[in-house]
């Protein structure tokens, strides 16, 4: 029996954070769980989410992409999206640290709209207002051939209402769900 992952799916009506090289993987898994997503990014960023890659998680037609010109606009749009609640998940790519006020505003908006928020942040830029914070990094996997996703190490490094933990997970493309892998196998 594998240990159950405690804080995923992400707690609804709260705003969470994810950092690390595979933060986008967690966002995609959360979007697949929610069934629809508003993705807010700054238009100048060269890295972009690809719908063909996303299709392994969620039908790309369930994604709405908002291109903001800076972080202030990103937060404005994210807050609108959270408060509205038409899409169950709002993912925002942040490039600068979030102030406590801004974090609280997002939390209130998420509560009002009963909508989940997820900030993709740089390492060490977390806000104190976040409900949970995850660090997602890839793991080398010498045994499994790579037809599904990379073996990922999801570390829960902050949790306001629960315990922390580390899980090794893999996204199963055929089953469209997260599978647990025993960390002991390493």
């Amino acid at each position, binding site marked *: 029996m594998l240990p159950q992952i405690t804080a995923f799916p992400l707690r609804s009506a709260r705003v969470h954070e994810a950092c690390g090289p595979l933060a986008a993987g967690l966002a995609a898994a959360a979007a697949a769980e929610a069934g629809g997503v*508003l993705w807010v990014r700054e238009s100048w960023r060269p890295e972009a989410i*690809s719908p*063909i890659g*996303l299709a*392994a998680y969620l039908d790309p*037609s369930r*994604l*709405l992409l908002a291109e903001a010109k800076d972080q202030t606009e990103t937060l404005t749009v994210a807050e609108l999206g959270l408060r509205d609640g038409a899409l169950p998940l709002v993912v925002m790519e942040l490039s600068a640290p979030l102030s406590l006020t801004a974090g609280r505003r997002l939390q209130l908006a998420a509560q009002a709209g009963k909508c989940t928020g997820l900030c993709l942040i740089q390492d060490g830029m977390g806000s104190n207002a976040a409900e949970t914070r995850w660090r997602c990094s890839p793991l080398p996997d010498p045994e499994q*051939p790579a037809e599904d996703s990379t073996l990922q190490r999801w570390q829960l490094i902050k949790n306001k209402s629960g315990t922390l933990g580390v899980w090794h997970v893999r996204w199963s493309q055929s089953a469209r769900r997260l599978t647990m892998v025993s960390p002991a196998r390493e």
Partner: protein
Amino acid sequence: MFDGANRRVVSLWFPRLASDRALRRHPVSGPFVLTLKEDNTNHIHCLNAAAEKQGLYRGMALSDARAFCPDLQSRMADLMTDRRFLIGLRRWATRYCPWVGLEGDDGLVMDITGSAHLSGGEAEMLGDLRQQFSHAGLTAQIGLGDTRGAAWALAHHGEGVAQPGQAMAALAPLPVAALRLDDETVTALQRLGLRSIGQLADTARAPLARRFGSGLLMRLDQAAGLQPEQISPLRDPPHYGVRISLPEPIGLEADVMAATTRLLERLCDKLAAQETGVRVLNLTLRRVDQQGQHVELRLARPMRDPARILPLFSRGIAEVDAGYGIDQLRLEATQVEALPTQQTSHSDDTSPGQLDDLITRIGTRIGLENIRRFLPADSHIPERSFLIAPAAYSSPESFPSDPRARPLIMFPPESIRATGPQPPQQFRWRRMPLTTLRATGPERIAPEWWLDDQNWRSGMRDYWRVETRQGRRLWLFYTPQEPGWFVQGEFP
């Protein structure tokens, strides 16, 4: 004559339309100009007679004008209202004849063939027009001739009437500019010594056509009545404008919203009657100091439901500066689309409408075109196998399932140092030393030769999925025709 009928055309020119309109409401004495901001400088857009007398002219910088004329009074020009005013004048002019069209930004053209007798003859009609315009405080120059070109020339260069069949005789002394030519042609003609229309008409046609093209002769023939020219009367479009005048000025946001609700209800009734929905709404709030404030609302879908539109207005209205109060509101649907009545059914999914409202709401902040969605496209080139379309002008489409593994994150190709067609055992990417654990590939993708793509100039690509000992799984490609290795994406 080309059509056998003697046409009679009146051209009306309002040389000071904008300033006359502004002064009708708030007369001032002395020199007065309207200005437009261009390149961060205020230029004169329109000026009254007193300002013209001082030597000011259109396009002059306002600061220069003030130096010439210290007691100059100025206001900002409002092009949208000017246009609306001209369209109103056009509608008014249909009392004389049914065929009235617009002539540029500051003129009207009327085909009075067979209508003049209704006003008691041409002379009486012109007299009546002049009287009406002087009552209204508008400077107007009126020309009457057999053709649109002749009437235009007479209106713009000395008012006058050309008797039937006498167009060329009346036009002969006028300068060539009266033929509606561009400045370049006019200057060139003047250099040749051709200053008046009479001189031009007497010149051999073939050399003129060679030198200036057929446009010049076309204008000459149009004026003389040898070539037909159309007057297109504007059809009155269904008017989607409502307004409300208030006995007491209001300033509170809640009051403005309440007034907007009443306007919206009336507008939506009109829209429903015509089976249309509105895409762009324009709310004009007139303050007691006569300044107009505009609130524009662009909707993600055509709509005609007041309850749904109203909350979308709240942000725009909150930004309005009410000043000493607002005493008139005008709501206009500037862009409408057909929206047939649909039967509602209980199985209807309500979420699309909710999503459209969200798009509209975000669109008022960052622009409607910055909210996009992915659409599938038929191409095997990874970057081109999908489209990014504005969400407001497209509907979602499901993607066909694709068995080929594609990365979740893609970026412009980043060069790495490696040689040979096999994936490198060790390489550095973004300053990280990486070691290959397993590589899957190659998947060869050839450029689409029928499309010239700058990024695919290096020829075909062999794509590899490379798992590294450090864990990261990258999408690399090798270009055999111009050897080189690049990283283009990362798998989750």
